[in-house]
């Protein structure tokens, strides 16, 4: 067990339960209650997914939400904003329109009791700058997501860094997505490509090239020469959207990191993530003194839904058992008890 003191907390993004919510198998209250039951007490909400009537759901919704937070002992840690810059046909929103849109989402976050707001990666640095003082007034942090294939040396992210360093506003920062640390090609993606009609030698080449840090960008050409079908071209393209970076790269930017989207594709029966090495990531966060939440973001759903009934609940539970282990939560006996209790309620394995 880990003996180093740290302030890292556990949460869940309701993005994780999208399949069950889409099919109306889980209500919003079910999501809150499920997260609370596994000790994932910090909730991350996508208002455009979870709130009927967004952006104006009415006072009754907020009162119900507040009531659930009290009842289940949970808090809203973050909300995710989208910036629909292409809302108007034939033109992109002006900077003023984008600023107004972000402010509206900040208002919603404030009303839900959140402290962090995810600014989607296409939010321009100028809009972040224009919203910084408003977010400060509301006591919110407006955090740019750093999502694969972006990284801290990407020109777009460097423009954001320049604004953050120049303004020195406590309201601006980053919300990295752990999908930037995909060490091994996710098995759920390669298996899906095989089911969809990719030939094994194409899939093996893509997986091997990715895993050995080869030239994934050259794969598209290679595949074309090899006579790739559309599914095979798809897996070549996919391999360029995945990225591996050394998690230690976060250390330099940790003062700007206030929330983490703990992306995962597949929690195996052995209790580890198949492709993202959390056993390497979490020690870096502890070393850097990270004090925010690890917010589960299950994204394997779409890669298995053609063949398995998606069980997001069990996948998220497994990730939290892994977090408990890596964060050294509870005594070993308690951990064993939690694991045994959860597995009896868990339902079937997705693999």
């Amino acid at each position: 067990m880990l003996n180093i003191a740290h302030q890292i907390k556990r949460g869940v993004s309701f993005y994780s339960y999208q399949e069950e919510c889409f099919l109306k198998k889980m209500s919003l209250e079910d999501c809150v209650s499920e997260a609370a039951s596994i000790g994932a007490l910090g909730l991350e909400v996508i208002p455009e997914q979870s709130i009927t009537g967004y952006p104006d759901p009415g006072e009754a919704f907020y009162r119900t939400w507040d009531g659930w937070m009290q009842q289940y002992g949970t808090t809203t840690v973050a909300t995710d904003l989208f910036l629909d810059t292409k809302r108007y046909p034939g033109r992109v929103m002006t900077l003023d329109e984008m600023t107004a849109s972000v402010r509206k989402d900040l208002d919603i976050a404030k009303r839900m009791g959140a402290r962090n707001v995810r600014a989607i990666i296409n939010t321009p640095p100028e809009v972040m700058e224009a919203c910084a003082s408003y977010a400060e007034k509301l006591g919110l942090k407006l955090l740019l997501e750093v999502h694969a294939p972006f990284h801290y040396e990407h020109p777009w992210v460097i423009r954001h860094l320049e604004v953050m360093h120049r303004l020195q506003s406590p309201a601006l920062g980053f919300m990295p997505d752990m999908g930037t640390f995909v060490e091994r090609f996710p098995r759920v993606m390669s298996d899906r490509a095989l089911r969809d009609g990719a030939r094994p030698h194409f899939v093996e080449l893509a997986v091997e090239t990715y895993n050995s840090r080869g030239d994934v960008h050259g794969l598209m050409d290679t595949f074309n020469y090899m006579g790739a079908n559309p599914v095979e071209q798809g897996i070549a393209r996919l391999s360029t959207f995945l990225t591996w970076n050394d998690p230690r790269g976060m250390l330099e930017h940790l003062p700007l990191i206030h929330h983490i989207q703990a992306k995962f594709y597949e929690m195996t029966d052995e209790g580890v993530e198949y492709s993202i090495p959390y056993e390497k990531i979490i020690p870096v966060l502890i070393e850097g003194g990270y004090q925010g939440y690890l917010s589960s973001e299950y994204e394997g759903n779409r890669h298995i839904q053609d063949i398995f009934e998606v069980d997001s609940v069990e996948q998220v539970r497994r990730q939290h058992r892994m977090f408990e282990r890596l964060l050294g939560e509870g005594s070993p006996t308690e951990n064993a008890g939690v694991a045994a209790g959860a597995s009896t309620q868990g339902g079937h394995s997705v693999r």
Partner: protein
Amino acid sequence: MIVEDTLRNVVKGDDVTGFQLGVRLPYYRGLGLSMVEDVQVTVDGETAPASAVSLTVHGNTYKLTDLPGVFDDRWEMGEIATVAVDKPGGLGLGEHSVAVRERLRISYMPVPGGGADQKVLTLQD
């Protein structure tokens, strides 16, 4: 996207004026209707012209061709919208091969998103 057991003829007075079915957005959030670029319905190989298609979300009905100007209403996540196609006489009873293709303008994606689905539905009266 296509919801089972939703294919029906539309009857107005004594006339069958067309048919309708339930569809969802293939997306993990709701979307403003101005960003729904197309809902293409093909039944038994025949694609309905856009001018014959309308969409109903939570009681509000819009012609497909008017959607680009709808800025104050959304298609919610998982919401089953009713897509209606004007077609005098409607469809015959029994099985029909139904395909729906939705094109969505997602701002953070460089090309339009969306999806396609195909199912055999049985028209019940």
